[in-house]
């Protein structure tokens, strides 16, 4: 027994130690290679599913634009899309109810939003807003002498706004412009903008689905331009100075009747494509009859257009 004991005492155990070290290193390398390749395959599969889901979502939008909001289902490549179509907004509300505001998706700096105040339907004769064929379509034109405008979602990234109202003055269509800014001073000072009429504060105004930091009532008693004229046609709004996209909303004043509502004009289509576990969403905000962006520069320029 004594001899055996000595025999084991002479073993230093270096071989085992080296073996364990080699095994650990080999295990680490091997596992990392296997893991990386598995992650690669999983990622590329997810990305492929994402492409399929996106294509399906686009297909859903295409179908909705053709008037069918039932979504699509491509059985062959296992992708489908569900579509949520808001219909024309804002809806003319029931009697004695206020109409919902018309909310624009966030606008980039100097992007123009257009809001119809007269019905853009081709069955309507302007000015006066009468139906060409009364059996086809009841006209909806805004005839109130004030209108609420909300904009901006940040008090740090302050967006100013330029509003252009187009109306019929009895002989021709003419514009009326407003320029509003937050009350804080800018460098250099923004003296041409009205900074007293808009109400901008940190808590903002929750209107519809969003919170807006500034509110102004066009045609309000304190509006230097006076009440809104008759023969309203459309308003074009442009955000200025903002670094990030910011939302805009227009809200008809008063309880609803056809002449106190904004005409239904915009459509929100949200199509959600699904493939495997991946979802992609495409949102489309469609406006009926938008004049091109050069409208503001060309039609109302002081002089003739020189090519």
């Amino acid at each position: 027994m004594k001899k055996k004991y000595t025999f084991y005492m002479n073993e230093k155990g270096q071989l085992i130690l080296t073996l364990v070290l080699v095994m650990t290193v080999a295990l680490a390398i091997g596992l990392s290679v296997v893991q990386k390749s598995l992650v690669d395959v999983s990622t590329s599969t997810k990305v492929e599913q994402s492409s399929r889901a996106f294509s399906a979502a686009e297909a859903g939008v295409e179908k909705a634009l053709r008037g069918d909001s039932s979504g699509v289902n491509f059985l062959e490549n296992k992708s489908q899309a569900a579509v949520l179509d808001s219909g024309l907004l804002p809806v003319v509300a029931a009697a004695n109810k206020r109409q919902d505001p018309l909310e624009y998706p966030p606008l980039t700096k100097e992007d123009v939003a257009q809001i119809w105040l007269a019905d853009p339907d081709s069955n309507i004769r302007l000015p006066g807003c009468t139906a060409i064929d009364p059996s086809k379509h009841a006209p909806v034109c805004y005839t109130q002498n004030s209108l609420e405008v909300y904009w901006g979602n940040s008090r740090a990234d302050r967006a100013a706004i330029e509003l252009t109202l187009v109306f019929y003055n009895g002989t021709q269509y003419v514009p009326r412009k407003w320029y509003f800014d937050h009350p804080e001073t800018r460098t250099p000072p923004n003296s041409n903008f009205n900074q007293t009429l808009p109400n901008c504060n940190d808590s903002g105004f929750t209107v519809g689905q969003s919170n807006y930091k500034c509110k102004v009532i066009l045609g309000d008693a304190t509006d230097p331009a006076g009440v809104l004229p008759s023969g309203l046609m459309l308003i074009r709004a442009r955000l200025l100075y903002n670094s990030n996209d910011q939302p805009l909303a227009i809200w008809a004043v008063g309880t609803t009747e056809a002449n106190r509502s904004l005409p239904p004009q915009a459509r929100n289509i949200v199509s959600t494509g699904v493939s495997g576990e991946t979802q992609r969403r495409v949102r489309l905000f469609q406006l009926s009859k938008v004049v091109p962006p050069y409208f503001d520069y060309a039609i109302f320029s002081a002089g003739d257009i020189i090519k």
Partner: protein
Amino acid sequence: MRRQRGFSLVELLLVVTTVGFLVILLASVPNALNLFSKSKNISLAREIATKQLEDQRSLNYLNLANGQTDITDSRISLLPSGSGTILVEDCSSAICTNGENTKHITVTVNWKNGSKNQNIVLKTLISEGGINQ
């Protein structure tokens, strides 16, 4: 007691485990390398298919003629035995129930992963007066 020769059971077990472990590890490396090339090919095929779909979407609806054409993207030669087709057809009544003016676009990219056939199929609809139209 007589001096013991040979290996103890623990030593034997250790050696067998180590050798077995190394063999499994070595055997999985080619498989992992194969997975690398597989994921690379899937990504490339997806890129090609997406590009083709975008190209179709940029066409005017009236220029979308029914029929099948081969994909001409130069990157397709980077895929092993790579090929691809674009199929334009009228949207079937099963999908477009209202009989809309809509084309059903199917982009297929095929390639081989070893001896196994692989493909990516992207499908969408393009309608008259739709996106980009």
